């Protein structure tokens, strides 16, 4: 239980720090300007470092996953997605993985039941929950563009309109606000419910869930319940997009909680499992086409081996071979 409660306590403490510091010590410049810029710098440099670190590792061989028929003879149909033969098809596989989580769709579960019963079945809940979680985060991220642009970029407008199409409350209720909280709760409960998952789950599995949940709760509070002055907030965020260091105006502390948790997430991101966001594009089992039969792949760090051909061998020993009566190719 400690590995669940510790991350929870840390997130609660992280909520408290900016609240107390802004409310009672007036540290709005530190938490409104310095911390976000430092976090952004660490995020960008950290992500770039991790990506370049992965990119410079050679991947000499194709790692084929046996999920479909490989391309062989023309008259044998092959699976373009599950055993791609060209880089283009491989990138379609990567993009489908990124947007639809096809690997998770193949998720199975095996359970030992009461008595001599064993079930092995397809399990789609993780796929569904993960999809809901990640897509909501994407839409929420896109929606936040309204804080960083004078006019909302064209393609985000329909996303934003679709998100509030239920037209339930005022300010308009965003579907993704509810979906992301529900999905985060599901992903958390999923880890607790199953004994096997409980054992393999680590504090670093719970911490990002709690952190993202807390960010969402702070955002929802600000929008629907406690309210924060959006004009002053937009002035500050527009300052971010213009790289200005103007001190923020009078903003409710809950905004600083939201901003600080996002900063923590940004700093935590490059050094944690959250890097799967960048790593998925570089995963060799997804982005390498399976063309081992068409193309010879040579390991670049093989030592240069001095080969000795049969012709050279015969040149050296031709006379001795003739004397011994062995057949030679060249007289």
């Amino acid at each position, binding site marked *: 239980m400690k590995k669940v409660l510790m991350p929870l306590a840390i997130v609660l403490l992280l909520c408290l720090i900016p609240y107390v510091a802004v409310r009672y010590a007036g540290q709005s410049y530190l938490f409104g300007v310095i911390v976000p810029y430092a976090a952004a710098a660490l995020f960008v440099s950290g992500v770039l470092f991790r990506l370049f670190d992965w990119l410079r590792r050679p991947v000499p061989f194709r790692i084929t996953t046996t999920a479909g028929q490989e391309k062989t003879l023309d008259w044998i149909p092959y699976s373009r997605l599950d055993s791609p033969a060209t880089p283009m098809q491989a990138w379609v596989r990567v993009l489908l993985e990124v947007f639809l989580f096809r690997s998770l*769709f*193949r998720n199975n579960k095996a359970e030992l039941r009461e008595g001599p019963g064993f079930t092995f*079945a*397809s399990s*789609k809940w993780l796929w*569904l929950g993960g999809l809901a979680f990640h897509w909501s985060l994407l839409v929420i991220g896109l929606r936040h563009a*309204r804080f960083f*642009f004078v*006019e*909302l970029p064209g393609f985000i407008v329909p996303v934003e309109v679709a998100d509030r199409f*239920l*037209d339930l409350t*005022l*300010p308009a209720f965003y579907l993704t606000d509810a979906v992301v909280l529900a999905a985060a709760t599901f992903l958390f409960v999923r880890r607790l419910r199953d004994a096997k998952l409980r054992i393999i789950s680590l504090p670093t599995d719970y911490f990002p869930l709690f952190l993202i949940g807390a960010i969402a709760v702070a955002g929802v509070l600000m929008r629907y319940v406690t*309210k*924060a*002055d*959006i*004009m002053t907030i*937009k002035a500050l965020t527009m300052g971010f997009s213009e790289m200005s260091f103007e001190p923020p105006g009078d903003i409710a502390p809950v905004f600083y909680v939201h901003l600080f948790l996002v900063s923590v997430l940004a700093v935590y991101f490059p050094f944690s499992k959250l890097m799967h966001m960048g790593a998925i594009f570089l995963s060799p089992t997804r982005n390498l086409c399976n063309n081992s039969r068409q193309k010879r792949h040579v390991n670049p760090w093989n030592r240069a081996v001095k080969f000795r051909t049969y012709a050279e061998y015969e040149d050296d020993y031709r006379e001795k071979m003739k004397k011994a009566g062995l057949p030679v190719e060249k007289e």
Partner: protein
Amino acid sequence: MSNRISAILALLIAGAMFVAALLFMQSVHGASSALRAAAPVAVARQVPIDSTRCIASTVYMKSHHMQLLNQWRHDSVRKGNRAHVTSDGRRFDKSLNTCLGCHASNPMFCFMCHEYANVKPTCWNCHISPMEATR
């Protein structure tokens, strides 16, 4: 094989959820239109407007005006209750015109902030906005 079945199942569930959402919205809208038909809107009494002060503090109006306007619309259009009494006992007509009586003096009053914050209120879907009125 089981994968294909579950794929079809997932699609079916998604479709069913979409249809359920549509039906839900239909029923909600249907109910409200029925209510509208049942309850005749009371005739607005002319309430003298005290234009020296707003109905609530600037801070409150800044953060809650949308909820207040929504409440006013609900009360006046659906319940026929058009009298708003402020916390200090002043009486106002629950109408957008009450607001615009003062705030329309600057035709950009609503738009300055809404444009800046990229907020698109639905007021002007039906009402004539001060900006259109001055044009």
